[in-house]
């Protein structure tokens, strides 16, 4: 089964994304910030990351830059942010995101992109 790591400091957002993804059959784990996400990603292999930008300790950009510099299997990443400006989008792609979505995401939209990037469960 494909495993997705949801990285967001807001518990409700994690639960919302979890419900959508588990509902479609994906396996899900969570992290509250970039450092915890790195710890988890270094210990387990994930097929995808869904990453918030603004988080304490290590933000989404920082997480992606770190993970992209590690010698581990590289999974695609969707960055989700409250910021709709193009500058943020460029920063996200520069840090190693595969896709940039503006919050709040709709369930169908999220699933379509996830399937596009990593296929079905």
């Amino acid at each position: 089964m494909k495993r997705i790591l949801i990285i967001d400091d807001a518990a409700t957002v994690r639960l919302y994304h979890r419900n959508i993804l588990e509902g479609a059959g994906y396996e899900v784990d969570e992290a509250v910030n970039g450092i915890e996400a790195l710890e988890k990603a270094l210990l387990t292999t994930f097929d995808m990351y869904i990453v918030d930008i603004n988080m304490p300790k290590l933000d989404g950009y920082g997480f992606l830059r770190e993970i992209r510099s590690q010698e581990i299997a590289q999974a695609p990443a969707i960055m989700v942010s409250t910021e709709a400006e193009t500058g943020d989008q460029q920063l996200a792609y520069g840090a190693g995101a595969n896709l940039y979505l503006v919050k709040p995401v709709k369930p169908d939209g999220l699933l379509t992109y996830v399937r596009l990037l990593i296929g079905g469960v």
Partner: protein
Amino acid sequence: MPIIKQVDSEINDTEKRLNARDFPGLLEQLESNDPSARRWAARDLATHSEAAKALVQRLKREDDKSVGEAILTTLTKLADPVAVACLVECLRSEDVALRNEVIEAMKNLPNEVAPIMGSLLTDTDPDVRIFAVNILESLRHPQVETWLMEVIKNDTHVNVCATALDLLGEVGTLASLDALQNLKLKFSDQPYIIFAADLAIKRISEA
């Protein structure tokens, strides 16, 4: 077994006073080219209440993360209005990492942040309003629920409301129920808001 040696006198006081540690001396050290000197200056300035301004000036230019963290810890300990005003200024920075550090620092200053919370929550920049709600996440202050209620009642930006909603699910009481119901009407086309509001309502009613 004697491979493991006794320490002779590694731990001693010689390092304590290599440079002048008075206020002008520390300000000078804060501009040193050596990050470790800057970091120590930032830490030692915690006993100088007039240091806030110089620290924030340095923070804005600082490219060494460890010095930046030390400055923020010291500003948190200084906790005076100048320090807080400077922190607010940094909330508007384009530097995401700095902003998030500032948010964390402000969470630890309930008494100093409370008087300006109202104006932060009604700032014209929705990002600043979101950051203000982020500060409420850990702000140890009895007014948190009231502030959050005001946000979901009055704010028209979906992500400002979404951020407040996340927190209301945790700290909300029966007093928030009406505002939560109304929020669902305001954003009836947003599945996330409906989900989060329903979750908050369920938690409050079943608690």
